[in-house]
Structure formats: C-alpha cells, structure tokens
C-alpha cells in the first residue's frame, strides 16, 4: 500500500519535471495510508501549482495555472459554496464535505462542474487550451 502511494507521488514528480520548468517540491509525505504532494513549476509564461492529497477515503487534487499571481485556470475537487449550490441547490448544507470536481476560470470569476481530473488531464488541457 505504502509503496503504491510512494510510487504514485514519485511518478507525478517525474511527470511534472518532464512537463514543467523550475519544478520545486514544497511538501512531500508518504505514510502507509496517506500521501501528499505540493509542487510549483513553470509552463510557458504560466506559474503552475499542483497539489495531491491521497487519503484512505479520497483523493483531493488541485491543479492551477496562474499568471502574475492571478488564476488563469484551476481544476480542483474541493467543494465550496458556489459549487455546492450549483450541484445541490438549496439542499447544499447536507453535502458540505462532498468532493466535486470543477474548473475555475480567470481570477476565479467563473466556475463549472467537470469530470474528475488527473495530472495528465491537466497537462493535456494546458497543451490544448493555453
């Protein structure tokens, strides 16, 4: 189990180093049941912020591209008030801790529900859209 998680985190770092420049690992931990990674990099003129947290019951991700510190695009699955209302309407209070994949647009002014993303999906999205 620990080897799987360590392997997954290690693989993600290798891919990030292949895809991005100036990759810096800010946090990296692996235990038998949990793992986490937070890294920064650069792709073309964009700052890249990647975060993966693997828990026994869930995977929480966050893949962002920023320019001058402002969000250009961001994919994550942490439900916030806007996302919960979009999905559950007025019933959102019962689903506070749900993980809901979604995409933030420039400066987080827009938000849309998406399928679950992986690091590779994010890289493909960058290549196809930015």
């Amino acid at each position, binding site marked *: 189990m620990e080897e799987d998680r360590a392997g997954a985190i290690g693989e993600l770092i290798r891919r990030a180093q292949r895809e991005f420049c100036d990759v810096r690992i800010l946090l990296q931990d692996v235990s038998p049941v949990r793992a986490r990674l937070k890294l920064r990099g650069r792709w073309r003129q964009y700052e890249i912020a990647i975060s993966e947290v693997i828990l026994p019951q869930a995977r929480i991700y966050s893949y962002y591209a920023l320019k001058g510190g402002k969000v250009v695009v961001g994919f994550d699955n942490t*439900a916030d008030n806007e996302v919960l209302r979009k999905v559950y309407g007025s019933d959102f209070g019962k689903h506070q801790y749900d993980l809901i994949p979604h995409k933030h647009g420039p400066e987080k002014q827009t938000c849309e529900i998406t399928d679950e993303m992986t690091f590779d999906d994010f890289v493909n999205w960058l290549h196809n859209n930015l």
Partner: protein
Amino acid sequence: MTTVAVDSRCIKYLRMLGDEQEVARRAIQDYILRKAVEKIARITLEQAGLEAKYGMDLDTFRQRVTTDEDYLRQLNRKEPLWEEDLAHWIYLSEELKEWRRIEQELSGS
C-alpha cells in the same frame, strides 16, 4: 509476530542491558514513541501556520467556505489557492489523530 534482522554487535550490546528480547522490544517502542512525539510537534506547528493564515480552525474554515458566499468571494481574491491549503489541512488533521493514538497506545504500555 515479525522477525527483524539485527546486527550481531547490537545483539551483544542488547544482552549487556538484560534480556535481549525485552530490551529490543522496549528500544523499538521508545523509538516509535519519540518519533510520534516529533511528528505530533511538526504537524501541530504546520496546523498552527494554517490557523494563523486563515484566522480560524479547520472545522470553522470548512464551514465558512461551504456556507458563506461573501467570505468565499473575498477568499478567492485574497488566497486563490486556498483549496490546496484545505486539502493539506485535512491531511494534517488525519495524521495528527493517528499519531496521537499511537502515542497514547505506547505511553500506556
């Protein structure tokens, strides 16, 4: 029961301290306990950093981002990468529970 290979020199020293099985068991237990205390200190420090950054504890923060529209709007402007902080905060909270459980279990034995 799992067998662990130990250097013969260490076995010699363990025997100098008493029954090698018992001394080894206690040494491993003390080592894990010391590591648990270190982990707890490190996790608590990182959690305190997040609490200071957001001015509240994890439960309150989760409550605010999921229920308070105005707070969320301000947060998205001020800390656009707050989602990754929240994920790591949750990770720390789960790790802390586990290491505290280990610490209690070993302190009591």
